[in-house]
Every structure is written in C-alpha cells, then in structure tokens.
C-alpha cells in the first residue's frame, strides 16, 4: 500500500502514519498549489488527529541540476505545520502555521476549512483515494512472478483516512521558481520534535524498500523505521548505503519480472532509478497546467535528457501503482503493467477540498 502501515512505528501509531502525500496545481486555479497529506489507514468514524503530533509539509525550491541527471533542491524551506487540539465535544479545532508565522485556525471536518493570506486549509475524514491490489503485490515478491490479475482486489476499497488539504497561493507564499520539492512529515510535539514519518513519493517504503529477500547486504533489517526518521532533503551518510543497496536489489528484481533487463546497472551495481528515488520528494512544476497523469513525468524527462512537459507532482486519482510497476518492470518501453485495480471507490473532485467524503461502514467489503 502506498505508504500505509510503512513500518513497525507506523503500525503502533496510525494517527501519525502518513498514507499518502499529493502535490498538484489547483485544477480550478493555476495560481494555487495544492498539498495533501493523509494519515490513519482504515480510519473508523471516531478517528481524530493527535494533539501530540505536528503534521508538517516541507516545500523547497527545486530545479534540474546542471548535469541534467538529478534535481537541485534549494536550502530555503517553507514549512506549513498543522496541529490539533483535544476535541471539545464533537468538534476538533486545528491550526496551520504558515512559513511567515501567521496562524490559520480551522475546524476539523468543516468543508469550508480555514483561510489566511494566500492559504486555505481543510482537515477531516475523507475517502482513502489510494488503490492497489496489495496481496498480489506481496505475491509477486513471494513467487518472483508478476501475480496481478485482470481484475484485482483492493483492500482499501471503501476505507477512510484523515486528510489535510492546503491550497497555497504559491507566488505569494513560496519564494523562488515554480518548481518545488514537497515532503509530508509527522513529528512529535515538544521542544525538540522527533520525526515519526516522512513521505514524498508513493510506494517507496512498501513496494520499493520493503522486501528484504533480495538485499545482499542487510537481509535481516527492517529498514523502514530508520528510513522514516531521515530528513528527506539530507539523508544521513551513515545509512544511505543501506537504502541504496536495498533499492538497487529490489529495483533489479522488478526489472527482471518480464524476463529482460531494461535498467542495466552501472559499474558500481547501481540501478539508474536509485538516486532519483532516494531523492524522496514529490517534484511539482506549478508553471505547467494541472494534469491528471503526470506522476514521475518530470523524472522520466530528466532520465531521457529532455524537457518535461507536465506539472509532475501527483494528482489524487492517478493510478500511480500502474505507473510505478510499468516504470520498474519495463522502463515504459513495454506494455502497461496493471495491478488490476484501476480506481478507488469514489473519485476525487477537481474542486476544493478535492478528496471525496468519507465512506459509510457499508462501503467496506
């Protein structure tokens, strides 16, 4: 699953378990950048945000590096911190601290949310927009063969999450160019916050890093908690080798699933996608119009040494699992690799707050 249940710590604290992060130009207004963070997989109706967690969006200016093989991410950072009170009766209050220090209060589950100068915030329970045939993804690893069916089964069908949606006037609030790198994080509150989770791209921890059996270096290591605790923009040099080894091994496994090698490793055994994926943030170009299918287009353009043509980032309804599988297995040079699940129970809307309302209990299988 995208980033659902991505390690022991996430399992212990679902309220801090980020399931997905999305970043896209607002479909109805290109001057706005939309950032979404979902937490709490399988949230039942009583789920509320924790008062002990900071739900943070980190945004940095990004550009294509001069060698055109990687992203160059600036040191300036714009953070949006959402925090929540203990509910007083049925209503929970939250607030978002903007990069300029301004505080925007809002009420959870209020469709209008809260607004400040250049920012609109919604937080509340919504339908989980992610979809995947998780058991067949696991079976693919166990059997070392593509196990997906024509019609798959989505364990997230009819499930809900807690979502936070920020609509940002990017030209006002984010200095720098129109391309930026986005990460979602959960951290403990307190004087010195401790990072609990961080998410940029979908399916890094579960699909890409989760399997241990191919790793020639750390086959016994549950790497995901360690990975979650890292700063996405500044990986620890002590552990990056472990992440690299795991990614190289797992990506090579996926590449071999169609019986041919589309991603030859370099002389050091590195997979061509490894460094790009280690740069684990969504890259979105808000100067380009909204697109429903743009996930990793900027990255693919970079690999192909051509200018990108879409906004990149990630839209709610995109079937990113098919995109990822196709990229990993045949580099986009072969047929689309499908997991057999092509949509969620309800599509997200192209208008604020974008995510579909929560499902009732009857929606779950």
């Amino acid at each position: 699953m995208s980033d659902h249940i991505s390690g022991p710590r996430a399992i212990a604290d679902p309220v801090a378990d980020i399931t997905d992060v999305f970043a896209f130009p607002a479909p109805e207004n290109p001057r706005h950048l939309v950032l979404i963070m979902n937490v709490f997989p399988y949230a039942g109706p009583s789920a509320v945000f924790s008062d002990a967690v900071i739900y943070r969006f980190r945004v940095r200016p990004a550009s294509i590096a001069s060698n055109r093989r990687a992203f160059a991410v600036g040191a300036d950072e714009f953070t949006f911190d959402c925090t929540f009170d203990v509910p007083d009766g049925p209503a929970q209050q939250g607030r978002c601290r903007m990069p300029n220090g301004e505080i925007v209060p809002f009420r959870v589950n209020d469709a209008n949310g809260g607004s400040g100068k250049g920012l609109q915030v919604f937080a509340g329970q919504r339908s989980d927009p992610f979809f995947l045939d998780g058991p067949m993804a696991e079976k693919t690893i166990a059997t070392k063969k593509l196990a997906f069916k024509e019609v798959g089964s989505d364990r997230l069908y009819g499930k809900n999450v807690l979502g936070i949606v920020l609509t940002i006037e990017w030209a006002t609030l984010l200095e720098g160019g129109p391309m930026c790198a986005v990460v979602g994080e959960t951290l403990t509150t307190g004087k010195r916050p401790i990072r609990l989770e961080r998410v940029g791209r979908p399916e890094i921890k579960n699909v890409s890093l989760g399997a241990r059996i191919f790793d020639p270096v750390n086959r016994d290591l549950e790497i995901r908690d360690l990975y979650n605790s890292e700063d996405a923009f500044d990986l620890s040099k002590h552990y990056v080798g472990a992440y690299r080894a795991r990614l190289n091994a797992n990506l090579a496994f996926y590449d071999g699933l169609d019986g041919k090698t589309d991603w030859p490793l370099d002389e050091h055994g590195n997979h061509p996608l490894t460094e790009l994926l280690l740069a684990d943030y969504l890259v979105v170009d808000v100067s380009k119009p909204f697109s429903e299918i743009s996930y990793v287009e900027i990255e693919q353009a970079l690999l192909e040494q051509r200018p990108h043509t879409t906004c990149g980032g990630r839209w709610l309804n995109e079937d990113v699992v098919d995109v990822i599988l196709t990229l990993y297995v045949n580099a986009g040079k072969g047929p689309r690799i499908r997991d057999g699940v092509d949509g969620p129970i309800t599509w997200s809307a192209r208008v604020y707050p974008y995510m579909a309302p929560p499902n009732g209990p009857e929606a779950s299988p």
Partner: protein
Amino acid sequence: MIAAAHTDGTIALLNLRAQIDGLGHATAEDRIALIDLLTLRGLILGHIADYERAEEIAERLVRDEATDGMALVARARTRAVFHRFTDALGDLDRAERLSLDAEITNRERAAILQGLGRYEEALALREKAGERRASFENVAALVGLHAERSEIDAAKRLYAESCIRYRGVSPFPMALLDFQVGLMWMDQGRLEDARTSFNAACRRVPAYAPAQGHLAEVEAEFGEIASAVARLYPLALSSDDPDYAAQLARILGYSGRVYEARHWRRLAAARYDELIARHPEAFADHAAEFWLAAGADPGKALPLARMNVEVRKTPRAYGLLAQAVAANEAAGATPSWA
C-alpha cells in the same frame, strides 16, 4: 533526552475505537490486528466483552487458517487472557512447528510463563529478548516481570530505561507500565507510591478502568471514601467486569452504607457466577477475592482459590488460598488443602 508528548488519552481511545471499527475482517492479517486491538481495549476499559470477541475471532481464524503460525499466536494470546495457559502454550508449540520465528513465539511464551508463576523461565526468555534488542517492548516486559516478583530496584531501573526508550505518541504503553509498577507498590504496601503510579496511568488515559479501580482501592485504604466511591461508581455502572461493583460493595459496606453495598454485592455476585461458568480459570482469583471480602462467603471462595492455584502457581495465588483456608477455619469449616 527530551521526552516527547503523548496523545491525549481521550483522543487515543477514540482512535482505538476508530481502528477497531475501520479494520474489517477481510484478511487473516486484519483479523490478527483486530484481535490485538480488542485485547488492548479490553485491558484499558476493563471490557470482558472485548476479550470474548477477540477470543471468538481467534478461534474462527485458526479454523480458517490452520497453517498460519501468526493465527495460532493470536489465539494463544486470547487464551492466555482467559488464563487457559496450557492451551495457549499448545498453540505456540504448534506455531513453532509451522516454522514461525521463535522470537515471536517466545515473546508470547514468556508472558504465559509469567502468568503461570514460572518466573525463572519467563525471565530467561525476556532477558534473551532484551539482549537481542533493547527495544521499549522488551525492556517494558522486564519491568512487568520484576515488578511481579517484587524486585523493586530492577523494576525501577528498567522503568526509567523504558521511559527513555519509548518513542511513540500513543499513551497506552506507558500507562500500562505505570499500572504494573503501581501493582508492585500495592503488593509492597507502599500505598503512596502506588497512588503516584496509578495517578500517572490515569493522567495518561483517564478511562483506564483497572488503574482507576486500583486508585480507588488506595484511596479507600487512606480513608478517602468519597473519592474512592466517586471513582468506582461510573466503572461499576459501565464495565462488564464485576471487580468494580465488588470494590464498591466492599467500600460502601465498610463505611456503613449497607443498603447500597447490598445492591452492588448482588450485582457482582451474579456476574461472577456467570463469568465463572464461562471462564472459570480466568475469574477464579477475583471471584475468590470477592467471596472473601464483600461477598462474605468463604465457603464459595475456597474452591475458587484452590482452582486458581492449580492454574497458576504464583505467590499471589498461594496467598489467596491461605486467606481462603483461614477464613473457612475462622468460620468453623474444616477446609482441605488438597
């Protein structure tokens, strides 16, 4: 090291309910998670119905997934909750024969051995786990074991270590730990220390029923009857565990409120009889305690105390049996130790 804040106990409980309600029964994994969540809620709220639901799911799960070692471990956990320790150990042995990692089965086995009073064996397993990985879970498990053995210095030292090692935001693990330390202080007769620990557990999770119940017991010992009664009333009303009604009957009886005490005594007695019929091993000790105190029927207590010693040979179980024998002797009966 700066301690991180934990989620407010009210939120944590809402979210525990949300996890239970949101999970579903689609896969074995879901059902195992559900068993754990129900067991946790049972532990926090003193809800026997949650334990029973977990047990039911576990039995069905093992029927459906007979070769799934994790299903057997989950069932072992629910059986241990109801003190069916031999059955639980059997499940773990079966899980191991299915090649389940011994680290997983031994974690459960240590808890069962501890429940049985086989402390040395439990300690050996717990220490091995702690040496392999000094995680919060492993260190906290050692706190519980040393606390139960009244090894105060070791329990205190490991409690401090657990606080440092805990990295989560859920308040439940630390509340459960505070509670275990509180029980240790009670066993030692150090009521002020017990009050501090139970208070800490209640601050973390105000709805933590066993912690509230024991805090009321401490307050009653200090003569703070009004506070103890106020604490017990909502628990006696809401919980399906008769312990709170039994405590309330005892305290009200001692303070001369005989009529009210009689009401709660009747309720507790009926509920203990029900539970003894369904889960004899699990409720023998608490029912015996009830019949020795507010229940005022040592004759009923004795066979239960004896059954309890048969199930678990802990110092506490022997103490309860001795109490039951003495009470019967005092009442003119001639109890048999056999």
